[in-house]
Structures are given as C-alpha cells and as structure tokens.
C-alpha cells in the first residue's frame, strides 16, 4: 500500500479526534462549575490546538503554543484562581435566561459565519510547499527589515510585553509607595479611607498576621 495514502488516512483520523476533543474540552471550560477544573480543561483545549498546528505543518508554532500558552498563561490563570479563592465564587451558576440568550447568540453567530464561508470559494493565492525548517523561516521573517518583513511589529510587541509586565506589577502590588496612594488596596492603615466609603472597605487582618 502507498505510504502517502496511509499518512493521509492517519492525518484525517487525527484531525477528527483532536477537533472533537478540543470541542468537548471547550464546552467543559465554559460549563465547569469549579474554576480550577475549567483551567485544566482549557489546558486540554490548548494542547489539542498545538496538535492541530502540527497537522497544519506549523510545528514551531505548536512548540510556541505549548511553551507560552500551557506553560505561561495557564499557570498565571491557575494562580489567579487560587489568589481570588472564596467559597461562593468558585461556583459559577448562570441563570436559565442567561444560558438561553448566550446559546442563541453564539449559535446565531456560528450559523452566520458558517453560511458565509461555506458559500465562499477559497482559491490559493500562491502556490508552494510548506517550508521544512519553519522555525528558521519564521525567525528570518520576524527580523526582516525589507518589504513584507515583521521587524517593526516584533519590536512593538516586545515593548507591549514590557509595559504589561510593569503594569501587572504596579496594579497587583501589595503596598503602594507613599506618593501613589491609589494603585490598589494596599495594607497601609488609612489608605482605604481615601477611596471607599466605610461600608465597602475590606476587613482588616489582625496585626502580626501578614
């Protein structure tokens, strides 16, 4: 039997298996009662997407997906779930009206988009075969200064990430510096008086128990 035929059959099976798993896990993400479980299901969706990238001849992107999304973003989400833990917040139970409206809106969107792209003829814009060493090609493309190069967006993204890191530290820091009282709910005595009325202030912890 032709090995290309076998490879094609395996990739067809992989597409349907990975796609079905991604859809089921995504449904679990939006329906899970407990947020920590939703985060784990989200990890599953992202891993399935990495597998789908491999099927689309984007192996480097699959590696980036696993490293950045699963290794970085998801850990951050899990930390946020744990830091904002409280008994009633883990259970997220939408009302029936909300569920019906959300389902109608999202299914309507799906039908509309599907109607558009099922009636559109997609013709290849340029012939070619996927490059074998895609990490090399992507890297050269990212740092290319000529026409069609991506060096400017690349640098802008690096500035954006730096700004996000500094902004995250400033917003989430515990004790603001003296001249900056409004950054967040710090734990200096009297700071909350500047911002919130008395009824909405958070309860103070006992002294000696930071």
């Amino acid at each position, binding site marked *: 039997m032709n090995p290309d035929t076998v490879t094609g059959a395996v990739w067809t099976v992989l*597409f349907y298996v990975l796609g079905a798993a991604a859809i089921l896990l995504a449904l679990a993400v939006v329906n899970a009662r407990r947020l920590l479980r939703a985060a784990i299901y989200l990890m599953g*969706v992202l891993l399935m997407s990495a597998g789908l990238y491999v099927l*689309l001849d984007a192996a480097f992107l699959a590696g980036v997906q696993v490293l950045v999304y699963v290794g970085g973003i998801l850990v951050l989400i899990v930390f946020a779930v744990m830091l904002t833990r409280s008994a009633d*917040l883990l259970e997220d139970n939408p009302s029936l009206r909300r569920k019906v409206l*959300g389902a109608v809106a999202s299914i309507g969107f799906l039908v509309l988009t599907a109607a558009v792209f*099922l009636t559109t003829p997609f013709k290849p814009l340029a012939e070619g075969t*996927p490059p074998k060493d895609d990490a090399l090609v992507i890297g050269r493309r990212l740092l290319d200064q000529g026409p069609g190069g991506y060096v400017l967006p690349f640098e802008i*993204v690096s500035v954006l990430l730096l700004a996000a890191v500094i902004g995250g530290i400033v917003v989430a820091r515990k004790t603001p510096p003296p001249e900056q009282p409004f950054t967040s709910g710090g734990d200096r005595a009297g700071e909350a008086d500047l911002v919130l009325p008395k009824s909405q202030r958070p309860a103070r912890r006992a002294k000696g128990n930071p």
Partner: protein
Amino acid sequence: MIDFLASHSPDIRHWLLLSAVLFSIGLYGLLTRRNAVAILMAVELMLNSAALNFVLFNRYLMPGMVDGQVMAIFVIAVAAAEVVVGMAIFVALFRYRATIDVNRMDTMKD
C-alpha cells in the same frame, strides 16, 4: 477503509468550521459567565481559535509562506500581555472588594 479516510482528508471548510465552533463556544462562555477569571478563560478560547484561523488560512491559501504563522505568534504574545494585566486587575480588585463577580464591578457607574 484506509483509502476512504485518505480521500476524505479535511479541506479548508472543515478547519474553518472547527475554528468557528471553538469561537462560538468561547462567545457562549463570555456571555454566560459572571466570574471575571472564567470570562478571561472564554476570551482565551476565542483568541486561540482566531490564531488557528490565521494558521489554517496560511496553510491552505499560501502554503509556501509563513505570514499567518507570524500573525499567530503575535496573537499569542498579545494574549499573554492581556492575561498579565487582567489577572493583576482581578487580584487587586479581589483584595479590595473581595469579589470578582462582574455584576458587582459597578463602582464606576455611580
């Protein structure tokens, strides 16, 4: 069996349908959830399906190029920045108000 599977390999419409379904599920989560972290997870689902769209259009419309993959890398980087800032805001807000229910984040309306 193997010939049947090999001759029914997914074309661009199957991929687009998969990505649209994932995006719609994310939209459903965005509209129904009340917990801010859960909403952010739904947004991550939508961003992920958008990145998948970039890669599949790259693969099927101009397979010799990598522009769609470069765009997907930018999408991932922007998603990382968004999650960092969002989570910092939620942690600060939770420390202050002891809630991350978006229905109760209404102080700016007054």
